[in-house]
């Protein structure tokens, strides 16, 4: 009854402008010849060239990718188990606490998570470094994975697993042959989300990292505090570009899968 009217168009145009203009400007000024952010000095890719010579940024990028890769992989494993436990294991002792520990990290202020995780490492005399950042990242990103898996698991009929058992398949083989292929797209998007969460995190990494484990966000943050520079714009543009390509590809794959299934 309510048609797509002028109000809706205005809301979308203004809303998306608000969401995208800052990012577009950021990308635009990464190609600015001039060092001044407000003066357009002509097109140039020289800031990208300078990045290549910035050893600090290159080191931080390497640490970040390592941490993101390992933490997202472990988080996907743990989160998948947690998501299955939440949907298919019925009631068990301490279920409420378990689900609390899954949902709380997603809204909990990062300063609290960062501080508490760090204090635990200190009290156990574990040195801060790549390991501690990775452990902290696994812990909060596994919760996101668990929720993605949980919603996929609860959207398909459990009698499919029962049917496999009924046809003589052992519980483990049932998981490998039936459950895993069905939830695979959710596992992949869970991994992607965990990867970008780790890639983006500043606060928790600041608490839990030590010398030698400076991640890219920490590096960018320390540069930002000194002011806006085209170099930061260039790093940011690369990150935004990577994430965009990843997300768009993932969603295209998902869309094609859906279409293949829908076509008769």
């Amino acid at each position: 009854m309510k048609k797509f009217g002028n109000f809706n168009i205005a809301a979308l145009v203004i809303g998306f402008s608000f969401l995208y203009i800052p990012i577009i400007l950021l990308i635009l000024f990464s190609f600015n010849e001039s060092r001044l952010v407000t003066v357009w000095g002509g097109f140039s890719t020289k800031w990208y060239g300078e990045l290549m010579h910035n050893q600090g940024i290159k080191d931080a990028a390497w640490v970040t990718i390592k941490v993101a890769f390992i933490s997202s992989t472990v988080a996907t494993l743990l989160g998948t188990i947690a998501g299955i436990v939440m949907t298919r294991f019925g009631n068990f002792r301490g279920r409420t606490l378990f689900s609390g520990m899954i949902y709380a990290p997603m809204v909990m202020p990062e300063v609290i998570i960062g501080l508490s995780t760090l204090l635990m490492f200190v009290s156990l005399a574990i040195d801060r470094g790549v390991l501690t950042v990775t452990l902290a990242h696994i812990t909060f990103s596994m919760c996101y994975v668990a929720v993605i898996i949980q919603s996929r698991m609860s959207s398909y009929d459990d009698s499919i697993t029962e049917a496999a058992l009924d046809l003589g398949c052992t519980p483990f083989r049932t998981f490998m042959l039936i459950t895993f292929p069905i939830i695979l797209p959710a596992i992949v998007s869970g991994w992607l989300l965990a990867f970008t969460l780790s890639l983006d995190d500043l606060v928790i990494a600041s608490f839990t990292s030590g010398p030698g484990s400076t991640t890219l966000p920490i590096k960018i943050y320390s540069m930002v505090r000194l002011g806006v520079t085209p170099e930061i714009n260039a790093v940011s543009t690369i990150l935004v570009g990577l994430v965009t390509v990843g997300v768009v590809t993932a969603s295209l794959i998902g869309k094609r899968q859906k279409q293949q299934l829908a076509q008769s």
Partner: protein
Amino acid sequence: MTETTTTEPWLDSNQKPYIQIVNATKKFGNFTAIDNLSLDIYKNEFFSLLGPSGCGKTTLLRMLAGFERFTEGRVLVDGEDISEIPPHLRPINMMFQSYALFPHLTVEKNIAFGLQQDKLPDNIINQRVEEMLELVELTDFAKRKPRQLSGGQSQRVALARSLAKQPKLLLLDEPLGALDKRLREQTQFELMDIQEKLEVTFVIVTHDQEEAMTVSSRIGVMDSGKLIQVATPTQIYEAPINREVADFIGDVNIFKGIYKGQDEKGTQLLSEDSKSIIYATQKVDVPVGNRIWFALRPEKLEISKKLPEVDCNILKGKIEDIGYGGSFSTYHVKLENGRQLTAIRANRERTAEHHLTWGDEVYLHWVPHSAVVLLS
């Protein structure tokens, strides 16, 4: 199926039951889903569990399949206790209400799935899959994915998949529930043919009494986790043991009243509706003065404008409502005391010679033989 089962094994004390459910109880917390239920099912039976939703019929089926554990009691198949055997090791297969086809596997891979679990050689698997596809007439659809199938085709794949392993017992949970009426009626006969051809024992759960009547050798009517009556479809329909069964299976008119004894016309009931004595041939063994009931199927009530030339079982009323059903019409007749009865009459004449219409004064009548006496 009653006709094709030449012998009725449940009447023969020498026959050994194939499936024995012994004192089965299932509790979910404080809720008792199955209450100390015992049941024997014989080889090659087509047994229906019939009841309203929530009566425990699906729980009982899932206990047989092994998805629910027995709180108490056990189940024997061919004399072996299988109560503690996990589902994937039971010689029983199940056809799920939702069909539960594996969405990522083709039709033939779905059917082959159970055989592959037994690690059979490929040529045997392929041969069996082909047979099954032929049986359900889906050979051309072997390479399709479940999403590319219609409801009826999915149903047949599910059936083929559950039969591929030649189970000792096939459980079917509302197998036709998702199909439209026409397809359902057609598929009922297909199911019966397949069951006969493969000689597999079927236990089917349904809430559709017509379906149960059509396909079953015997029906178990369930309510609140208990079996109320186990009998052939004819017996269940013609001789229900109480008002609940009578009411659940088809339409029924119930007459409430006081038992007044027997005479040459049969059992006398002082009806609360007509305040007169009405008769049923069936004899009862209760003290005079007890409360009893007569159950009368609508098609056994004759309806006419003329006073019937009989000496008993005549009630007078007025037509309130007519439901035209094509081959028959349903009449709602209001008695003088306000009670409404249902009568069904076949529409034999096309013309309106015997035409009955709204507001007509009519007589309802039945022969004493068609009424069933119920004690509860």
